[in-house]
């Protein structure tokens, strides 16, 4: 084990955890600030990844493509298509109780997975899209991942800044007021459904961008990459551990949880071959039990809800 090796793995680790942090920030926008129950993150993640891949790749006989757009445009498109999807899902469900959105998002994630698998003209089906261009590939030599990490950090910083800004604005105050007591906000004549929808769509935009980052970093995406466990549930655990309605906590939660998730992998390898299948199951059970313990004992997570400027000051 060399120092350079550890460093390069650390960079790699931070990129992955950083992409998860983008997802967690996005989920915090939806769940933390607006109280929305999205358990179809995998769907938005996949849509973002595929959109960006298709937009930026050169022509390929295997799937839709050939637009050859720059990286930035790819990411933007990923966000836009993902938020469009959220908008469509939101129309029938967002005005109803949280549960409906939850069920609908599970459903939409499943359908997206089926579409990706079966519509080969669009996505190359189960074979996946390979050779997704990396921004400025070829420059930076062996330090390329460091450059990519900077992009990820930049995106996190941007989303963090915008989330904080947004949540402290009048818009954010109303959003939080809705989560506390919907009826009061309705009574003062605000369109509750609209605010919720905006938070949902914004969160989906961030998820789409996160998906785009994932696609460009791994250079290869296939339907297998967007399973509910890794893509949806892990993000929820990150958010709950870090603390709902706390952007900083969300980011820390993402890094800690991803560290433990990838870290406990070595346990599997240490067991004799006959027990390894069990080890993976035990790992998920432990993560699940850990989550339940947090929910029961400290549902506000490690950092708890941040004290943002209160609603009353907003009405000054």
């Amino acid at each position, binding site marked *: 084990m060399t120092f350079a090796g550890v460093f390069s793995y650390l960079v790699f680790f931070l990129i992955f955890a950083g992409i998860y942090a983008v997802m967690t920030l996005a989920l915090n926008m939806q769940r933390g600030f607006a109280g929305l129950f999205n358990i179809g993150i995998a769907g938005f993640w996949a849509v973002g990844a595929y959109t960006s891949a298709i937009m930026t790749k050169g022509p390929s006989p295997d799937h839709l493509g050939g637009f050859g757009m720059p990286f930035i445009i790819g990411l933007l498109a990923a966000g836009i298509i993902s938020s469009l999807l959220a908008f469509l899902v939101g129309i029938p469900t967002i005005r109803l109780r949280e549960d409906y959105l939850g069920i609908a998002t*599970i459903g939409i994630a*499943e359908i997206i997975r*089926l579409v990706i698998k079966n519509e080969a003209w669009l996505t190359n089906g189960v074979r996946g899209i390979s050779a997704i261009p990396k921004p400025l590939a070829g420059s930076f030599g062996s330090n390329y991942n460091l450059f990519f990490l900077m992009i990820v950090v930049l995106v996190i910083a941007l989303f963090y800044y915008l989330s904080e800004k947004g949540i402290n604005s009048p818009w954010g105050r109303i959003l939080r007021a809705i989560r506390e007591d919907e009826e009061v906000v309705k009574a003062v004549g605000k369109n509750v459904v609209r605010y919720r929808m905006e938070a949902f769509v914004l969160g989906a935009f961030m998820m789409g961008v996160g998906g785009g980052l994932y696609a460009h970093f791994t250079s290869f995406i296939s339907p297998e990459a967007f399973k509910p466990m890794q893509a949806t549930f892990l993000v929820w655990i990150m958010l709950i551990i870090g603390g709902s309605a706390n952007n900083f906590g969300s980011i820390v939660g993402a890094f800690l949880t991803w560290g433990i998730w990838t870290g406990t992998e070595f346990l599997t390898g240490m067991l004799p071959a006959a027990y390894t299948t069990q080890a993976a199951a035990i790992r998920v059970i432990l993560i699940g039990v850990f*989550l339940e313990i947090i929910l029961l004992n400290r549902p506000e997570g490690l950092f708890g809800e941040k004290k943002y400027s209160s609603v009353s000051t907003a009405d000054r």
Partner: protein
Amino acid sequence: MALQLFLNGVILGSIIALGAIGLSLIYGILKFGHFAHGDLMTLGAYFAFLFKVQLGLPFWLAFVLAAALTAGAAILLNLILYRHLKKRDSVIVMISSVGAALIIRNLVLLFWGPQNKFYEKAIQMPIVLGDGLLRIKENQIIILVLALTLVIAVHLFLSKTKLGKAMRAMSDNIDLAQITGINTERVIIWTWAMSGVLTAAAGILLAFDTHLTPVMGWNLLLPLFAAVILGGIGSPYGAMFGGLVIGISQEMSTLIISAAYKPAVAFTIMILMLIIKPSGLMGKKV
């Protein structure tokens, strides 16, 4: 062929209906979507596998024991998780039920492994009716009879017993029920027990018709919810009807669309229902 698909749909539909009754009552009484319901179904099916195949008990006994154990598991979930989370917002309860679903599924993986399992190693040749027009296995007739018996039992329970009436009353209006002096804690426990029995039955019958796999219940979660929403949350009769509709339309859909998109059918019906009448066919206002 349409007739055959219809029959397959009725079989699948009655299985979904059994699972959906419990889901709907819990939804109505405890006011949250129970996302571990599908995995409880899996658990029930594997309990029956344990008794029937691994311990060699007769099928009816395995059925009863598995149903009892699953009811116990459902009550346990309520006892250690949902009861304590009741005061929190419903998203917390729901995510904890998603966590419970994961734990159950992986416990099944841990004890029984990922391979598909069968109650019977040998296969059963179908009874052919009307010159190959319709094929039905003996097992499938048993499934239909059992499902019907259970549905009638549920109906009698809900309409004739004091406990059953209390359940319906609570699902209808919990505040009113409390005023009338119903012991809500007790009713909640019995609701979990009944849901556990019905879900186990659904899981066992599904596995009896096909096979056991650790994701069998999770894959049925969306159809279960679709049935509940179609019938109206909190309405057990609505759930039965919803289950049949979802089952039949899923199977019949293959006449028009590719079988690969079958899971999308339940979703589409559910979304349409939410747009047209979110309270469901037999439900109260949301």
